[in-house]
């Protein structure tokens, strides 16, 4: 033991990081800053536009009001269609993504190969644009709700699996250890040591994905079902802003409902 530690009188300095670490961090921060500066350099702001920007926003916002209440009846059918497809797609994604998530989490994956397989699945699923998935599945299943469900399901795996995997990486080791110590095999450790800990994460992520899927239902539209996304696009392209407003209100209700469901379920599990 170094003597200094036992010298009661001497002033001892304490730093969270050693000088070397501090330097390394500083260097990293500097690089980060430079990268951000490079990005800002690409900004290219036209200042005169910034000056009267509020005026322009008010111009459009004003034309969106009042909402076209009379249009309400016409958005119910597409909304229901959208909800059905998004729900089924999300369920599909949820089922597929849990095994992928387990493989993609560093503390539950079997080995490096499975880790990378899972990562490639996750990244591929989310790197391929929803439109592309929609085209592919429309070719396979024909345009229609089924292609929408599968496209949404496959597309969502990346999101749900990745976020659940990160949740798994953060669990409390001690609780898992205790279950391991009972001689439970992997599957049972999963059911007793891991699942209870990540249940809130799963609920949160899946409900979030559900409402994302509803909002991204232009995909559903593109495979031939008249989802709310298509209705919204049409309203915008026909410059019928009050109709846009009413559709937004409908979407907002769905989003808040998902928020409420998520909150309720997570409370049950936390």
């Amino acid at each position, binding site marked *: 033991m170094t003597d200094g530690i036992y010298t009661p009188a001497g002033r001892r300095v304490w730093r969270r990081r050693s000088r070397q670490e501090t330097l390394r961090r500083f260097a990293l921060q500097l690089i980060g800053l430079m990268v951000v500066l490079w990005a800002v350099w690409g900004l290219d702001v036209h200042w005169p*536009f910034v000056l009267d920007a509020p005026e*322009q926003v008010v*111009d*459009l916002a*004003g*034309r969106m*009001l*009042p909402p076209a209440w009379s249009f309400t009846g016409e958005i119910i059918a597409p909304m229901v269609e959208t909800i059905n497809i998004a729900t089924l797609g999300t369920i599909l994604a949820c089922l597929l993504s849990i095994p992928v998530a387990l493989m993609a989490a560093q503390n539950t994956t079997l080995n490096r190969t499975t880790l990378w397989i899972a990562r490639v699945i996750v990244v591929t699923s989310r790197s391929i644009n929803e439109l592309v998935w929609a*085209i592919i599945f*429309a*070719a396979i299943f*024909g*345009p*229609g709700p089924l292609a929408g469900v599968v496209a949404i399901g496959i597309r969502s795996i990346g999101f749900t699996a990745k976020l659940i995997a990160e949740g798994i990486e953060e669990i409390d080791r001690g609780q898992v250890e205790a279950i391991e110590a009972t001689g439970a095999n992997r599957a049972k450790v999963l059911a007793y040591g891991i699942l209870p800990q990540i249940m809130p994460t799963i609920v949160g992520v899946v409900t979030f994905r559900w409402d994302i899927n509803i909002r991204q239902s*232009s995909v559903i*539209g*593109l*495979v*031939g079902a*008249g989802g709310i996304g*298509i209705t919204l*696009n*049409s309203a*915008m*392209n*026909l*410059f*019928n*802003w*009050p109709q846009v407003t009413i559709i937004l209100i409908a979407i907002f209700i769905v989003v808040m409902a998902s928020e409420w469901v998520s909150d309720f379920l997570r409370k049950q599990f936390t």
Partner: protein
Amino acid sequence: QMTDCDYRGKLAERYCDMNRDMVADLPLDESEWTDPDTLIFSYVPVEDPAIYKETFQPLMEHLEEVTGKDIRFFSAQSYAAQIEALRSGRLHVAGLSTGSTPFGVNIAGFNPFAIMGTDEGEYGYKMQVITPADSDIESIQDLNGKTVAHTEQASNSGNQAPRALLESQFGIVPGEDYEVTYSGGHDRSILGVANGDYAAAPIASSVLDRMAERGAVDLDDIRIIHESQSFPTTSFGHAHNLHPRLALLIQKAFYTFEFEGTSLGKEFSDVDGFLPITYKNNWQVIRTIQEQNEVEYTTDNISG
């Protein structure tokens, strides 16, 4: 200003149409004229091929040369964004798709003056109604009771035109005599028909030609049962409040541009140059169609 303007037709309240050419007049007050150092140009491919940014480079260079201004080109993907930007003075020169040109004119003071065409003065594309090759649908009347894929509501040849023309010419009312489903785009309608998923679909001839050329669809899988008259393609125009001298220079630049031997020429192989047009004459057919479909232009009026 209100008192100065006693006619504006369908134009939004902020514009005026004293000369009754159906497009917004140059503001009387010279202080409202703009003469920016950098011209902003955008183009939305809807019934035209998707393009990469550099395809338009030769035209931009030519414009810079003739007008002496810097040009910034944006290939955008939403004409709502484009027209709103035009209305806000964020956009000076634009190419608007057939169906959205009337919106641009009425909502945003767009002033279309050119269209791509041949030296012979031919331009435009046709609406075609297609069915699978092995289908028993022979004529428009046979569509009765079938499910037909339209592209999307705002599209001209994919929705507006068939709704207006099939009724007047064949007595078939889309949505009543046959069921309408929206496919989301011309190419999706075409692929759907080729795969036998849709009984029929009205589409833009230009898109079908292009897809066949690229091998995206086999023409043997498809039969054309109806072809309409020609519709104008994308209109090129400028904002109503550009300084008249600048507006003239821009028009001149377009009219003098040679497609031959440029990347643009390669892309639009059957086009030789920009032909002069007027909204009042060349868009007559589109206006009729939209009128029949009861499309509203001036959102100012809707919001009261």
